């Protein structure tokens, strides 16, 4: 069966992906042998929910020269990844397909469907979408009280309602603090305003190994002192518009039910 899709001429035979999100969509949908190379982040369990599956695939570093030598029939990139390299590949006549970052669960569905079409794997994409819809429906319940949560990010930013993070929280039955504060797309929320607003939960990502002031903010002792701080252990599920966002929804729904039990 190896290279079956390519042999049929239904899809590109050699696919190279330059972005951790297109890496995962391609890993989910490509025929065996179709995907040739992934981005280095695909191997990092902190960024990629499919680090294990990506391990056999060699990494590329999004240099135009390196990609050209791989002789791809299709190059998958994020809209903002390695602009100079993808523009160069465009000029050299390679087929480059760019994906926008998913900002909603609907975007996730669109990206899955588009990836299926590009790879000539529509049937697989339809199966994946059907499972996605069924699982999302099963996860959604309508709670009576929704806890107000703040998803706090480096640089004093908070996640907005109209973002993938915001939709994950909403699907899990949580109310987002940025809604009440008039920040639909998220925005700056100084530390003291966050603490004074007294959200039911403050969610932060896990710290990186190496320090930065921007991320050190999330370890400020005052956040722990509020007693409502929750560290999100599965950041890789939140980054990309892949079906793994539903793992994030499930984890948040469980967290919400734990919170309900204490009320």
């Amino acid at each position, binding site marked *: 069966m190896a290279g079956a899709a390519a042999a049929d001429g239904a899809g590109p035979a050699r696919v190279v992906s330059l972005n951790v999100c297109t890496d995962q969509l391609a890993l989910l949908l490509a025929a065996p042998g179709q995907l040739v190379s992934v981005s280095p982040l695909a191997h990092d369990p902190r960024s990629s929910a499919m680090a294990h599956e990506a391990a056999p695939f060699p990494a590329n570093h999004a240099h135009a020269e390196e990609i050209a030598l791989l002789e791809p029939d299709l190059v998958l990139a994020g809209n903002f990844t390695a602009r100079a390299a993808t523009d160069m590949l465009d000029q050299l006549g390679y087929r480059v397909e760019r994906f926008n970052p998913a900002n909603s669960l609907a975007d996730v569905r669109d990206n899955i469907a588009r990836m299926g079409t590009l790879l000539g794997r529509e049937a697989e994409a339809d199966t994946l979408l059907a499972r996605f819809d069924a699982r999302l429906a099963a996860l959604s319940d309508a709670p009576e009280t929704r806890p107000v949560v703040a998803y706090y990010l*480096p*640089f*004093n930013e908070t996640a907005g309602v109209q973002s993938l993070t915001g939709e994950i929280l909403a699907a899990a039955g949580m109310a987002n603090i940025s809604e009440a504060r008039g920040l639909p797309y998220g*925005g*700056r929320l*100084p*530390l*003291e*305003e966050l*603490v*004074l607003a*007294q959200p039911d939960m403050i969610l932060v990502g896990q710290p*990186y*190994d*190496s*320090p*930065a*002031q*921007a*991320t050190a*903010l999330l370890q*400020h*002792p*005052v956040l722990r*002192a*509020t007693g409502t701080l929750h560290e999100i252990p599965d950041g890789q599920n939140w980054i990309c518009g892949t079906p793994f966002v539903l793992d994030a929804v499930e984890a948040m729904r469980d967290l919400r039910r734990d919170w309900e039990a204490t009320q």
Partner: protein
Amino acid sequence: MRLALSLSALVFALLLASLSLGYAPLPPSTVLRGVVGAGDPLHVMVMQQIRLPRTALAALVGAALGLSGAAMQGYLRNPLAEPGLIGVSGSAALGAVIALQTGLAAAFALALPLMALLFALGAVALILLLAGPRGGSLTLILAGIAVSALAGALTSLALNLSSNPYATFEIVFWMMGSVADRSLSHLALAAPLVALGGAVLLTLGRGLDALTLGEDGAQALGVSMTALRLKLLFGTAAAVGAATAVAGAVGFVGLVVPHLLRPLCGARPSRLLWASALGGAAMLLAADIAVRLVLPERDLKLGVVMALIGAPLFLHLIYKTRRGG
């Protein structure tokens, strides 16, 4: 005496203003009760864990920079000497970045200020070595530019090699400085070393006064130049190193403050020392208040505000130096 009182009053007023003006509006009574731990526990938490460390650090860092600027200018008898300008702050930042990125700071907490101190010590020693005890302007500035550029480049390199995606933004922080969202643990880390360095620098007054008569005159008055130089070296490195380790490299304070206060001190370096410590604290507190009042939603960096005040004064100083020939 009048100068001491008015400067202390200014610092006190700015301390109160810095505590009262935050991102969230809190009435003054809540602010005062919150600082001493009374009233709503929520307000106590915000006051004691967010605003108090920020205010205290701004004052501490300003005092350290003002004091070491005055001491260096007194010793080198050159109004251009300043920890930020001649690369001492930048080197301290490099030491701090190396301590953070190698995990040394995580291994034991004191590694951060100690590494900053070590690098600051190296920079001060290098500058003194290059500029010589008489501190010729040209060698001083050239040496300072070289040390600053090297420290800045190595800091950027260390951050570029970091695996944290936010580390690139970090370069701006280490070059500009900020006291936003620091915690009490930062304060506890920096305060002892700044106090130690400051205490050493304040003992230099008599020696620096004597030095205005020239080196021979000072020695005739019984001042040991070796001891003076060593104390200056250690005091500046400790104060600036510890301040930089928690607040990044804030420029211009050490240059501008002694320059502003010198006419009020009757050209006596001993008076200028403590006056510059108070003046530095006042200036940095004022700059940090400005950071929060002007464009509060954009998170201005402290160094930007200081440079906006400092650069024109610096130009004025150069212009005057040129006219003086």
